[in-house]
């Protein structure tokens, strides 16, 4: 492989890896939005909170990683239950903007609780995920890929596959899709909206945990983790707010796009494209394809 091609491959791969993270955060958004029409501003903070809880449990109680993961999932389920109990059930049938504001409040509460319980210093997350570059046994190729990133991609892929089966094949998965489609009809067949909300927020919490672990393993668990949510926004505009495949593919496109732009366009415009590329792309989409990649074309009824 030529040097240039090799470099391109590396750039694309590292873009895909960043994209996986965006996809996961966007996936959390989409799940909650579909099932309850809530635009969850707190999704990013949920990543931070989940990772903080995981590290905190491991450090404070000296627990093995897998035990801490199971406990953290339980904590996220508890958080979901509390959110339903304290917030959602009181705000059903309110305007979306009110629910959105409620999730802003939620973001601050989660962040505060995380700080209070686990402290605000940067934490090192070590779940035993291999670090360093991958040894391909193809040293003559000189392809440099982080092991952590491979693990992240595989884990995310598995998670999405498990979720897909869950949604397609099980009663609860079907109920989730039913609620996303039509609240009244879902109620009429005896689906309980409240339990569905708890389940959906729990699943979003698990997705947040996976994203938080991946990001945290790379850059430490700290407040900036919650800011990946800002990158999820353009992903949603690209993929459409209600499309699961859209969230995944949108995340990958943005991840790869911003790395490519940084490397190949950056030198001409002075760099740091990575910071704003996603938003420019989203803007372009808003202008030319507002329904996103997979959304249905919206035709106003007159």
């Amino acid at each position: 492989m030529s040097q240039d091609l090799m470099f391109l491959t590396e750039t694309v791969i590292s873009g895909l890896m960043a994209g996986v993270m965006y996809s996961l955060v966007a996936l959390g958004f989409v799940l909650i939005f579909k099932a309850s029409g809530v635009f969850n501003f707190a999704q990013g903070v949920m990543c931070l909170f989940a990772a903080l809880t995981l590290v905190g449990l491991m450090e404070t109680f000296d627990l093995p990683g897998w035990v801490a993961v199971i406990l953290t999932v339980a904590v996220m389920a508890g958080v979901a239950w509390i959110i339903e109990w304290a917030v959602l059930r009181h705000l059903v049938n309110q305007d979306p903007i009110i629910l959105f504001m409620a999730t802003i409040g939620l973001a601050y509460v989660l962040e505060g609780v995380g700080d209070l319980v686990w402290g605000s210093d940067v934490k090192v997350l070590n779940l035993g995920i291999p670090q360093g570059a991958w040894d391909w046994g193809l040293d003559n190729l000189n392809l440099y890929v982080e092991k952590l990133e491979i693990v992240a991609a595989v884990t995310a892929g598995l998670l999405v596959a498990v979720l897909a089966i869950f949604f397609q094949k099980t009663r609860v998965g079907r109920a989730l899709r039913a609620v996303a489609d039509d609240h009244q009809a879902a109620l009429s067949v005896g689906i309980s909206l409240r339990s569905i909300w708890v389940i959906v927020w729990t699943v979003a919490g698990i997705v947040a945990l996976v994203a938080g672990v991946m990001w945290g393993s790379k850059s430490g668990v700290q407040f900036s983790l919650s800011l990946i949510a800002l990158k999820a926004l353009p992903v949603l505009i690209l993929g459409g707010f209600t499309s699961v495949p859209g969230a995944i593919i949108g995340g990958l496109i943005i991840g790869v796009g911003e790395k490519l732009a940084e490397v190949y366009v950056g030198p001409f415009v002075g760099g740091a494209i990575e910071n704003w590329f996603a938003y420019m792309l989203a803007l372009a989409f808003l202008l030319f394809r507002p329904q996103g990649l997979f959304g249905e074309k919206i035709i106003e009824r007159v």
Partner: protein
Amino acid sequence: MARQPIGDVLLKADNISLSFGGVKALSNISFDVREHELAAIIGPNGAGKSSMLNVINGFYHPQQGQITFKGQTRSRMKVHQAAVQGIARTFQNIALFKGMSVLDNLMTGRNLKMHSTMLEQAVYWGRARREELEHRGKVEEIIDFLNLESVRKTPVGRLPYGIQKRVELGRALAAEPSLLLLDEPMAGMNLEEKEDMCRFVLDVNEEFGTTIVLIEHDMGVVMDISDRVTVLDYGRLLAVGTPDEVRNNQEVIDAYLGVAND
């Protein structure tokens, strides 16, 4: 199989009054439905027919009056409770899960009959899998019964209106309800579709013995297939009786002539 004889009172509405702001949708309505009966509610547009169904399955809570179902009396029944007690329904404006296949839509109807836990389902193992297959069998029977084989995997949003109405009936049937509420199941259909739907409604009543409350605009259909007819007009109860009694009721004739002259 012969039709099961009409039995005891299954559902009783007592003095139901419901208003929206200034609009009185229902004033002081009382009537009952007996086991295995095919009861119809008729009346002009805006008479309060749909509101009555919504009260029965808990979507609307009347300001006054109560519903007694299977001997249990409630003034504010929740939709979920109604479903648990065996009330299933269809909607005047089709309310299907548009993105899901016919099969999946019908499977949601069996929601309350499936019991595997969240955890079992998350791993899709043991009971969850067994349960899924068992209920799939039941749903396939309903698909056969309603002649929906050819579209079982099609997302319902892509099906023509008449077929969607049939799928909605199927979803309600999948719950094996003891009371089936049908809100204008034949509205907007052509003659052939209407006849098919009529046949299905009658078959459900005869073969499964399901008690049915049917709202229908088409007087001919109603008079043909129902055991008893309740007539509403502007939220008031105009008449209750057999099709013959209702047909010859002067008030009913006046109300309907009024409509015809609109």
